[in-house]
């Protein structure tokens, strides 16, 4: 198993740093999957995470100008590593004004992902910062649990409002109740509702727009105003929203009635999918 990659472009480095910051906010521990064309940050559907799943994918050639990997074997040319997300984002934070960033898989007393940053320096000599991020190699038998989640056919698919606005609304609602209902229809309307004995609060978002329907036939006679809803834990939604520091290029919300909500975001060229299941 080998992995070596290098980023020299400043913009790519900043983008990669932003992505790792986002991952650090979404998942404390996550799986990094390295394949010849892609890098994935994965959080799978475990009870410990409250059933939340995350799948983040980026094309390696959009970031790295050097990328070499050798997977576990020829037929299974992939590497699955488990790491603490905050370590990676902290390591990349020091690469703000770097000349070059190198990442490689090493084994210094324990397996780690070594991030080596060459800083721009005033003096003639270069300064090098090295971070050894401890990792756990995930054995092949567990790979099946870490595959791209199947996105079920949504009942409603709608574009999200400005995430910052949504986040401030949800933050205030969190103080009132842990149970949030998210509902949307094909008419561009999305509501966030909380209900307690004393008070009900609903925030309405209108004119959001819906993506073109995938299959015409099943939805043709659907009532456009019919709301699909799902009851979720507000803290999970808040954690997802807190991770979005930058406005995404595209943000889509798919609701499967009473089953789950699926967020599909695109940050420039990096796709992020986040699944929150319904409260049982």
């Amino acid at each position, binding site marked *: 198993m080998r992995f070596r990659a290098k980023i020299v472009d400043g913009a790519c480095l900043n983008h990669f740093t932003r992505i790792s910051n986002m991952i650090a906010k979404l998942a404390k521990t996550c799986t990094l999957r390295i394949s010849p064309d892609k890098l994935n940050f994965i959080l799978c559907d475990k009870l410990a995470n409250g059933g939340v799943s995350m799948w983040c994918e980026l094309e390696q050639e959009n970031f790295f100008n050097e990328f070499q990997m050798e997977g576990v074997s020829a037929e299974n040319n992939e590497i699955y590593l488990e790491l603490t997300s905050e370590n990676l984002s902290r390591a990349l934070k020091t690469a703000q004004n770097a000349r070059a960033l190198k990442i490689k898989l090493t084994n210094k007393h324990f397996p780690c992902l070594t991030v080596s940053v060459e800083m721009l320096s005033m003096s*003639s000599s270069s300064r090098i*910062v090295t971070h050894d991020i401890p990792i756990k190699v995930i054995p092949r038998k567990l790979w099946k649990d870490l595959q791209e989640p199947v996105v079920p056919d949504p009942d409603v698919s709608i574009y999200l409002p400005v995430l910052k606005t949504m986040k401030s609304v949800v933050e205030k609602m969190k103080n009132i109740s842990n149970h949030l209902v998210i509902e949307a229809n094909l008419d561009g309307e999305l509501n966030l509702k909380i209900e307690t004995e004393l008070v009900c609060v609903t925030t309405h978002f209108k004119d959001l727009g819906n993506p073109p329907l995938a299959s015409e036939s099943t939805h043709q006679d659907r009532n456009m105003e019919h709301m699909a809803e799902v009851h979720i834990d507000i803290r999970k939604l808040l954690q997802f929203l807190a991770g979005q520091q930058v406005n995404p290029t595209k943000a889509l919300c798919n609701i499967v009635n009473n089953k789950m909500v699926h967020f599909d975001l695109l940050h420039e060229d990096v796709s992020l999918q986040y699944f929150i299941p319904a409260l049982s």
Partner: protein
Amino acid sequence: MKCLVTGGNVKVLGKAVHSLSRIGDELYLEPLEDGLSLRTVNSSRSAYACFLFAPLFFQQYQAATPGQDLLRCKILMKSFLSVFRSLAMLEKTVEKCCISLNGRSSRLVVQLHCKFGVRKTHNLSFQDCESLQAVFDPASCPHMLRAPARVLGEAVLPFPPALAEVTLGIGRGRRVILRSYHEEEADSTAKAMVTEMCLGEEDFQQLQAQEGVAITFCLKEFRGLLSFAESANLNLSIHFDAPGRPAIFTIKDSLLDGHFVLATLSDTDSHSQDLGSPERHQPVPQLQAHSIPHPDDFANDDIDSYMIAMETTIGNEGSRVLPSISLSPGPQHPESPGLHSEEDEAEPSTVPGTPPPKKVGTGGGGRGRRWGRQQPPELTCSLCSSAHCSSAPSWPLYAPPRAPALCWLKTVRVKAEPRT
């Protein structure tokens, strides 16, 4: 004692107090003829800090009212810090700061004269007189490096603020390396991230150390001095010796100087001789016993030598032979009769001049330290294959095992002045 600080120096004084507050909980304020000294030591006696402000730092400085002896006092760091808590406020509103020590009323009075006629008076009670003196001599340390504080500030930037300890050493090609130090825990599954910063020799104004030498000290305590030095734009010197011997961090300008003396992790493993460069344990020449300086006379100090006399309360009269302290590692036999009597007061120790045994889990600042003969792992620095790097910062170095806190400081009691 009475002194007056004006203008920008008020903030400087405030910053110094902030720095000292990172070390200890009690501040020893001692007005001397050559300036006002502020000292502190941490609870485990593994860190000592001292700032000396020259008389020129003050608009007015009177060490003692004529006819009276010099007074000393010890006050709670928290109390003194609260006066200077907001540095922004000090800068914006405080015009003058007057500090006076009134032996009669046992009060330290700090008066801040602020804008718009506002005057804030703080009456701090102090505890009985004690003299905190540490024995250390930067000149006797074989290794030293000096750099602008800014360079060192940039060097510690990649390390997490919560990191307790860091190892500083010289690697191949005379590269200066800082590496995060984590205590080895046998049963720990969650390993901590290791960060390493590698700087070239050119970043340093002076680098006098051989490749392979290294010490491990508390980063949190060092940051206290570093932030002060950065704000004052001063150069910071680090004098160090073998692991286990204290490291001395100094800053100096025309109006003040600061010393932070931090214990370093010692190397108690005899196998250490096999690892690393063989020159590491060159015996350091014995300190010459100086001519006995007058206990309170600091004017005799030359710039590089800060041997401060150690006094005992037993028959405190006349001359006393300065204990000569051998700096070579390992247990040392006492060479001065004076040492024995002091050790009787100190905690029981098998060997004078070395730390007393510390139990597991104890230690200042909640940092548990333990005895242990752990086989130090051989660490190698990551290789840099970039064309920009002049030489690969590969650093054969071992991580010394933990040792208890050094108790090389003696707080001595001086006869309390009879109060009238």
